[in-house]
């Protein structure tokens, strides 16, 4: 079935299969989804490894992402240039990590990067405030936001530096069994 396609070489498909959690069929299906975002930009022949980037505005308009309050951070984290413009590799990587086959620790790593808005390797209070406002659409009062941020840092900060490092975050995620089912995008 997959031998008739001319988009990728067999070696490329093998590599994708080894480097993501997707099967051949899913990779091809995802390629078509990627192409549908910008048919004029994306060629049908990837055997020559063209360097094509889809701008963030188009990525953010995908039905799976368009209503997600964290879509910009997700695109930024997975894109190579950090701005949200994604190549096919970035695209596949993103959905592979967000798929249901990815293990918990891998997802926790990327979740940490997504929630770290200022990219300083710590989730500090300002990051938490941004997360809360995105989660509740700015409808909590500033005092409530402050209280919740303090409580979160109280609960999860183990080394007592006032912000969450990757270790603190992972330790907290281990104790959250819902994480695998909520940190998951179906495509």
């Amino acid at each position: 079935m997959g031998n008739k396609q001319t988009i990728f070489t067999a070696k490329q498909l093998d590599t994708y299969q080894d480097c993501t959690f997707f099967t051949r069929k899913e990779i091809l299906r995802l390629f078509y989804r990627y192409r549908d975002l910008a048919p004029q930009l994306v060629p049908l022949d990837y055997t020559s490894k063209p360097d094509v980037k889809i701008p963030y505005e188009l990525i953010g308009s995908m039905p799976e992402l368009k209503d997600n309050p964290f879509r910009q951070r997700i695109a930024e984290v997975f894109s190579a240039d950090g701005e949200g413009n994604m190549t096919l590799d970035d695209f596949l990587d993103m959905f592979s990590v967000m798929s249901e086959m990815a293990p918990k620790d891998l997802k926790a790593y990327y979740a940490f990067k997504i929630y770290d808005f200022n990219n300083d390797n710590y989730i500090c209070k300002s990051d938490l405030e941004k997360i809360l406002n995105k989660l509740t659409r700015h409808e909590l009062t500033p005092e409530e936001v402050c209280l919740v941020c303090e409580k979160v840092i109280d609960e999860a900060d183990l080394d007592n530096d006032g912000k969450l490092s990757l270790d603190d975050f992972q330790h907290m995620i281990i104790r959250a069994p819902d994480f695998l089912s909520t940190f998951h995008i179906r495509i």
Partner: protein
Amino acid sequence: MLTEEDEDYFTEPGFHLPGTPISNQMLPSLPPLPMQPQHNHHSEAGSPSSEVQQQEWIAERLEGDSRSVKELPLNLSEKRRIRERQELRMRKMSGWNSWMDRQHRAVQRLWEQTTEAFQYTEMWRGSLHRIEGHFGSGVQSYFSFLRFLVLMNFVTFLLVGGFIVIPNMVFEELQLKINTTSPVTTGNQTCFDYNPKRQGLVQFYEYVMDLLSGTGYMELTYLFYGFYENTAVDLKTFSYNIPLAYLITILFYFLLSLVWTVIRSVNRFKQSLVNEDSSLNNYSNKVFVGWDFCISEEQSVRLKQNSLRYELKMDLEEEALKKRQAAQTKLQCTRVYTLRTIVHLLVLALLGAAFYTIYVATGYSQQLISQDSVVSSNFFLGLLVQYLPSIVITAAITILPIFFNIFSRLEKYSLTWEIKLTLIRCVFLRFASLVILLYSLWTQITCNGQKDESHCKTCGYNNIYPCWETRLGQEMYKLAIFDFLTVLVMILLVDFPRRMIVQHCSCKLIQLWGQQEFQVPSNVLDLIYGQTVCWIGTFFCPLLPLLNTIKYFIIFYLKKMTLLKNCCPAKRTFRASSSNFFFLLVLLFGLALSWVPILYSIFVITPSKACGPFQGQFFIWDTIPNAVEPLPQVTKEFLYFISSQAFLVPIFLLLCILISYLVALANSYGQLVKELKVYMQLEGRDKHFLVKQINRTE
């Protein structure tokens, strides 16, 4: 380049990339952090070539890792490079190693393809996907549970049908039944009087009534126990003992249900165990794990945001309330405690009243059915009398939880405790109603356990029931049908009108009432109740698993339709993971409950003399010793030994010792975890202190 200390620093195994703050090195722009003096020559930020070098260096280190490439937290081009390097290394390997590697990869590919193929055979995958997208994983867990019940009922029906129903049909067709297994000798003639078919001119509506309540001509079908006979087929090459097959199949049916449910609960238990202290991580869970990335529609997203905001507000309010309560005076405390005691007593009183009503209603209904005069005269009256126990039970199950909800608000427990307590009360109500129904039937059938009473003296059971097992089967059959009808009626007459009223009428009171929320706990308890009824009834009504499969199949589509059309997502999200295990535990409890009447009937009550595969025996269990008799001496002695006390008591003691050992082990692990947590906090503080010292000296 790499010093010895670096090697030590990076050889820790464990999830995220060997070594602790190496995570910093993965990100593009990083200022040199004072906490990692050894990394100074790596972490010069800004110059892209050094970043690339870093990443390459990291990737080199990771090749020694045993994880597959796809699980590494690197971007795809990095992974590709690592994979290429792995392939190069593979080519340099000897022929044997590379062949092994190739085989390993081929097996992996095959495995992936088969799992992909299996995914398409998964039932209702698309529907569950849609439900998860709109309503989140809590509601999806209900439908996943429903699918599990459909599959379990279907497979167990294949077992029961294959060994009980189909052989009987085949033998009937081929006219093969020859010998009776136990000649019916003793007993008064009145015990053998069994004629369920209606005599004389039968009105049409009486046929419909018979269909709905399992009486009349329905009793003489494969549906009920009474139709099966105590015969055996004994040809030269093939023999089939029907009573033995009946008994053993039912036992295997229960065993299969038990094994399947336990396997499913063990998986959920692993998840739930990790979530031991959910109260400790309440806020962090809500903030980091609360957003369901599967939700994809703007309206659902808005509702999810509203629900998160509502939950956070409620939690903050609860904290404030707790602080106020802690500062209460003694007088207020005593007032709260007396209020709680009063509420508990009220709840017990309500439960007692409900149980008494069920008991009386069942007894009354049974007497009226036996008299048969009222039942046959009027269609609706007859149906009412037949379904009286079901109606009373359903009324109790629907009305009492409303009172429980009102009372729980008076008790002023914390929100989590309130929910748990209401849930426990509802579970108790449902199971106890079934128990009361069965108890009432038992008093009728065995004349309160007194074998010398006038009705029970002649046959060993109440002689107004020529075939008491069929009667029990009929009651379960009626419960199952009424349960299904209730779901249908609630959807048609309550859900749809409510949505239409709320949509079209803009009166404030109606808008306050609001749209229906899909209540997962009460729906799941309904399913468990229906499944328990099926388990109790299968011995007396072998086709009940099939009926249950069809019933749950239709209910899936009905509930999906009402969910997608009439319901809005609940304000408080339902935590699927922690409750999944609880509901499976309740299901197991229902299974254990269903064994009680079956085992009691098998071991204690005299089987009916006029019908059924166990006619003429003193107890249903006698089939097994009778079947063991003709076996060779060695097997017989072995089986007798296994069932004797000399064997069972030591086994039981051994199991007790094993359980206490496992409990002690679990306790010690719990202690170890607590100590490690404290140790980790101390480590953090030490690190903080050392960093301060370093900064001071610098």
